[in-house]
């Protein structure tokens, strides 16, 4: 960043650089904040990444940081965007649903408190598929987000708003949630990095629950260093979320440059039927990793092809249970009614079509007579998928696949075909089912100039190795020089 920071200098500046510029006195948190707001005003009307921008709150917080002067806060003055299913005290938190259109939670999620404690400024809330259920952000009750690389394409989903905001250079960092790939798939389709930590790594207190055995909050960033910075800020045990693990923090240093001795397993059998562009970029990235010292070998994950059906049984069963709370009694929208039963039905009529579909599937598979043959069976297959990974990690350190079988698809192309939409998640759901960390890293673009992502899945709590591998991909491609069509 130059000495005279203006709106023109800010876009594509990393979180690390912003912090350094503020600490060195080359700019202020207030200047960065104003430039960010200007960029959002100028660009977001063409993308619809944001559902809410907290102008006054962000500027007030920036002024407060400037008054306090330089500190060692790792995200000092860094603007961040937060997916709108993560609670921000007193600010809208809609989950892109009519049901929560006017909901303002009385508390902030632990991740939001931790980002703020690290000096970050929450600039606004980003668009998603309603209750995070979707792979394109087209199921938002407030209209879709468009892909900055080509506005006739989806950004992926469900965290499409956060992915688009980072890709367009509006913010260096954003949070999403990843239940079956909802951070990694949009990261791939928008050409940014998306990092799902191990189940239990990050507190979910204040995340609107979708499928509690799968949900994990996950960051988007453009660089590995920025991703590491956010991970350090948000990970760690939390008394308010009993599923958080007491593990040592992620130990990653950018100077771990070599991949000498790192074994990367590729489940070749799973790659049938992926787009030729995706295959080509994936193979090129593997070749780069080999030249960085890694050893690439073929592995088998025999039960992984069952991950999508297992995911839609387990995930929707949990969703139908979690979404029972939206009955008009405690949260958000309540339909006028003379009886309680009528209130339940009329209030829940505000759910969108995809949410209703998933509640119906979930209710069906948990209902008497079907629970054993669907839900319990799916949980057993899930155990086999987990065991496949455990076996693979005896001979390799990381599993590599493409993140998505295709590049960004056109708006409307899959919205009426739920099964086709669900297959977007074929490479991402296994990590959620197995509770493992996984990262999507940009690895080039396809023939249509759309980004392609490569995904690495690691052992539980081995985020540091995934960051090293991601960093190697980043250093060996010129990806960071690429810019989308719509940008700040």
């Amino acid at each position, binding site marked *: 960043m130059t000495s005279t920071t203006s709106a023109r200098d800010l876009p594509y500046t990393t979180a690390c650089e912003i912090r350094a510029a503020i600490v060195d006195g080359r700019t202020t948190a207030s200047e960065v904040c104003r430039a960010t707001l200007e960029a959002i005003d100028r660009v977001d009307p063409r993308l619809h990444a944001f559902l809410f921008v907290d102008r006054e709150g962000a500027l007030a917080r920036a002024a407060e940081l400037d008054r306090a002067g330089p500190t060692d806060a790792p995200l000092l003055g860094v603007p961040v965007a937060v997916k709108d299913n993560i609670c921000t005290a007193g600010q809208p938190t809609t989950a892109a649903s009519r049901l929560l259109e006017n909901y303002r939670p009385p508390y902030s999620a632990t991740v939001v408190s931790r980002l703020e404690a690290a000096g970050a400024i929450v600039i606004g809330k980003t668009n998603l598929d309603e209750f995070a259920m979707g792979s394109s952000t087209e199921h938002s009750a407030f209209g879709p987000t468009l892909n900055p690389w080509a506005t006739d394409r989806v950004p992926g989903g469900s965290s499409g708003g956060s992915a688009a905001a980072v890709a367009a250079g509006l913010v260096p960092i954003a949070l999403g949630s990843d239940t079956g790939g909802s951070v990694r798939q949009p990261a791939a389709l928008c050409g940014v990095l998306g990092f799902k930590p191990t189940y*239990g790594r990050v507190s979910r207190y204040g995340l609107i629950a979708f499928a509690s*055995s799968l949900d994990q909050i996950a960051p988007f960033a453009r660089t590995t260093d920025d991703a590491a910075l956010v991970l350090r800020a948000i990970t760690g045990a939390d008394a308010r979320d009993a599923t958080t*693990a*007491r593990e040592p923090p992620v130990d990653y240093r950018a100077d771990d440059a070599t991949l000498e001795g790192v074994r990367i397993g590729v489940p070749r059998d799973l790659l049938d039927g992926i787009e030729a562009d995706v295959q080509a970029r994936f193979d090129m990235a593997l070749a780069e990793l080999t030249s960085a010292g890694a050893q690439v070998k073929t592995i088998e994950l025999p039960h992984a092809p069952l991950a999508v059906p*297992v995911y839609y049984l387990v995930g929707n069963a949990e969703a*139908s249970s979690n979404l029972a709370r939206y009955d008009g009694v405690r949260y958000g929208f309540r339909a006028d009614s003379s009886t309680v039963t009528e209130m339940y039905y009329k209030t829940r009529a505000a759910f969108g079509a995809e949410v209703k579909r998933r*509640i*119906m599937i979930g209710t069906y*598979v948990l209902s008497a007579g079907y629970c054993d043959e669907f839900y319990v069976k799916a949980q057993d297959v899930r155990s086999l998928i987990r065991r496949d990974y455990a076996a693979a990690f005896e001979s390799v350190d990381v599993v590599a696949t493409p993140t998505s079988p295709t590049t960004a698809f056109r708006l409307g192309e899959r919205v009426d075909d739920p099964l086709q939409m669900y297959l977007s998640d074929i490479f991402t759901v296994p990590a959620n089912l197995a*509770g493992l960390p996984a990262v999507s890293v940009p690895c080039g673009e396809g023939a249509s100039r759309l980004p392609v992502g490569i995904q690495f899945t690691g052992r539980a709590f081995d985020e540091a190795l995934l960051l090293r591998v991601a960093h190697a991909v980043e250093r060996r491609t010129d990806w960071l020089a690429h810019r989308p069509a719509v940008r700040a």
Partner: protein
Amino acid sequence: MPSLTADEVRRIATLARLELNEGEVERLTIELAAILEYAAQVQRVDTESARAVDAEQPARGTADAAAERVLRPDVLVPSLPRKAVLDSDTGFFTVPRVLGG
């Protein structure tokens, strides 16, 4: 698997407290049948060995290390202000009358 009927869709909708119009019932009967047929492939998998794995690992589906049992100290901490949560002057959730009336 028996194919799904419109009546069954209506029954599930009642369990889920979802009010569906006839168009939605018709559409969901077709969509749910297709999705469940696709998902039914899990039923063809031999999962006998999975049961044994789970007996050793109490928390299904979580990363092994996250499944460790821990207890937090039993100490009082402030909870959210009642007024902010209940958002009413009564100090309760208020709903339409359930009994009598």
